[in-house]
């Protein structure tokens, strides 16, 4: 079994020196692995990465994201995915190749303000991310409450093998959809939604505490 070394770091901190491989949020300079973000550094065998504690969402291929339609033109919808860039959902990706802009207006399908669960289908840094709604669980959302969390805390919200999200869902009898862009869709009663929002707030502020599951469990009970 491999051992994992962890420590808290800020930008510029040397995590480790020697023959190590930089993975995410680290750079290598003069045989030193240096953190580029505030977060928790992890050394797993010879791999070093930093799990950040803050930051905005940067799209990645195949990420599931929850967004709001903000605009549409003749060929595509513009979706706010809580990121630097707006997502683009092309009409042909929803209505098929036979779609004709002259025959059908896009606003008759998705209107401004509609909430969509989508997937990043393509993103190469030179263009805005292309979205897709083909796949299980993807598409338009008709009810629920939206809540935002720093995208860096998403792994903490989900927990080890989904432990935290299971804990919240079991205690409140609600359904949570967590987008990797930091947007959470909550389906449940008003009282449960308020409780869950409180729990999410605690998770966001105290993400580094080891016994967070117990704290959230007590709150929800």
């Amino acid at each position, binding site marked *: 079994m491999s051992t994992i070394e962890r420590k*808290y770091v*800020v*930008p*510029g*901190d*040397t995590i480790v020196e020697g023959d190590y491989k930089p993975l995410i*949020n680290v*750079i290598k*300079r003069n045989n030193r692995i*240096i953190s*580029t*973000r*505030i977060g928790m550094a992890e050394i797993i065998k010879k791999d070093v990465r930093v799990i*950040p*504690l*803050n*930051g*905005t969402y*940067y799209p990645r291929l195949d990420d599931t994201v929850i967004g709001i339609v903000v605009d549409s033109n003749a060929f595509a919808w513009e979706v706010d995915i809580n990121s*630097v*860039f707006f997502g683009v959902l092309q009409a042909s990706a929803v209505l098929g190749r036979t779609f004709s802009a002259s025959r059908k207006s896009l606003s008759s399908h998705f209107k401004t303000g509609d909430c969509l669960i989508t997937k990043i289908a393509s993103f190469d*840094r*030179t263009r805005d991310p292309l979205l897709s709604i083909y796949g299980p669980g993807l598409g338009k959302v008709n009810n629920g409450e939206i809540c935002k969390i720093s995208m*860096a805390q998403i792994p903490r919200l989900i927990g080890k093998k989904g432990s935290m999200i299971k804990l919240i869902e079991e205690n409140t009898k609600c359904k949570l959809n967590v987008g990797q862009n930091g947007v959470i869709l909550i389906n449940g009663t008003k009282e449960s939604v308020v409780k869950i929002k409180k729990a999410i707030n605690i998770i966001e502020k105290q993400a*580094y505490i080891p016994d967070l599951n117990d704290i959230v469990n007590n709150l929800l009970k």
Partner: protein
Amino acid sequence: MSKNNNTRLSGRAADELRKISIEVGIIKNADGSAIIEFGKNKIIAAVFGPKEVHPKHMMRNDQAIIKCRYHMMPFSTDTRKNPSLSRREIEISKVIREAIQPAIIMEDYPRTAIEVYVEILQSDGGSRCAAINAASVALADAGINMRDLITACAAGKADGKIILDIDDVEDKTGEADMPIAILPNLDTITLFQLDGCLSEEELKQALDMATNGCKKLYEIQRNALMNKYFNDNKNKEV
């Protein structure tokens, strides 16, 4: 300038910094923010971004751009300051932007802008250095990829002596003012200005003194970030 041979008007030793404290995350609407009290200087820095670039023609396809605004409040000086941007403020905005740029990994954010706003609430000499320190912490708080924190500190010459962290009186009556900014872990200088005259020997001495000052400041910056993110209360104020 000096009361006696060893101390300055402010009572500090030649290589002593003013009292400094930094608090992180004070502006909820900004992505990252910090307030620094650097002696009598009080400065707020706020960072937005990475975000869409406006106007679009400023966008760069291979990297981010940095926009920086250094602004002094009308009540920041002893006489009212005109709130519009002066020539000096525009120049210092550029100086701060160029000092922080080498620390940011610009290639990680193509087609975006990072906006840094610095507001001087109260000024007492050395405000550009204090502003760089606050901006650096605010950038880290905004979660922007950085090679290192940027620390800045000035050294200068007054009464024929090299002194660290000169204040307003020493700046006006002294012989030289030399603000520098460094990336302490990478041993890189990102800002070097010199207003006045120094001999080669004095320059070396001032540079060493300012570098040591920057290293002390780095610890304060680091503690401020640790305090916010990991609840580490030690060394909050130095």
